[in-house]
């Protein structure tokens, strides 16, 4: 197989790998269901997203602290008032700070928390690609004139003996 053919096959393999990856991600996105906008579902979701302000890592859904109880009573009222999830989260952040959100916000410093793992993943992938390309470029051993002469001499000798 010529070097050009080997290069062509390698390119096809990379394209196939890319297609499989994109396809798998597509299936993953398609299977993830869109969260419900029903008021009860929103209340439940928000109760799980808002941290109890005086607890360590517990959501208001899990805690029985007075603050958690008050927030549990308050969320349905805000949903009924027509506030969006973002507005409701912002109201508690204004009162208790960013720590009241169990998931980081999608803006400001919270955005860094979301973006960093993706950056690390992308850089890691880039590192793998660079490493594989470097390994594949390692020069294979090519016999020089002395090697050819040695092999020829050995063959001649073997021929004479037989």
């Amino acid at each position, binding site marked *: 197989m010529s070097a050009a053919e080997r290069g062509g096959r390698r390119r096809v393999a990379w394209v196939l790998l890319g297609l499989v990856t994109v396809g798998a991600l597509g299936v993953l996105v398609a299977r993830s269901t869109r969260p419900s906008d029903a008021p009860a579902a929103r209340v439940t979701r928000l109760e799980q997203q808002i941290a109890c302000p005086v607890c360590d890592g517990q959501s208001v859904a899990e805690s029985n602290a007075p603050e958690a109880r008050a927030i549990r009573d*308050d969320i349905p009222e805000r949903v009924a008032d027509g506030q969006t999830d973002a507005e409701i989260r912002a109201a508690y952040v204004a009162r208790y700070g960013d*720590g009241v959100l169990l998931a980081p916000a999608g803006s400001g410093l919270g955005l*860094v928390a979301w973006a960093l793992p993706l950056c690390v993943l992308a850089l*890691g992938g880039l590192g793998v690609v660079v490493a594989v390309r470097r390994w594949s470029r390692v020069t294979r051993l090519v016999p020089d004139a002395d090697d050819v002469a040695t092999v020829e001499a050995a063959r001649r000798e073997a021929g004479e003996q037989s």
Partner: protein
Amino acid sequence: MRRPTRWVALGVGVIIAAFGVLLAVQGREETSVPRLVREHGPAPAIRATTIDGRTVDPARLAGRAYVVNFFNSWCIPCIDELPALREFYAAHADDPDFAMIGVVRDDEVDAVRTFVREQRIPWPVVFEGADRIGLDFGTTGQPETYVVSPDGTVVCGALGESSRAALETWLDAARLGKECV
């Protein structure tokens, strides 16, 4: 770039280190000054009925410097600060521009009634709807005291036991419309 993998590894390392620093800096706020006091926000409206049937509403508080004290009957620091609160209230109860309200944070109504009677607490104490008031103020513990200026701004206060001297300083500041922190 002669060694790209080394640069990529360095980049990953820098990002991970930056993330660690970010997490360390983002640590939880530990302060004895409630957020509403630090931000000098407007005092949430208090509409409630006290355990002895008195009415508390924003109209009665408008134009006054007033103190809101969150407490529980079972809370030792709340009991410890009671002598200071009693002295402070006795000194100012007749001031026409002064008011003081106790708000129960997390307690049983019978325990609160007994506590108020036994401890001879003369200022109005709110039980029904106290969760709502605590949420509006953004309380995080007890005792927690807020002092509001006549224009309705939360100017002073603290989480934890308050002394008579601190209460007097806060009231003076509130009457002048000054912020303590």
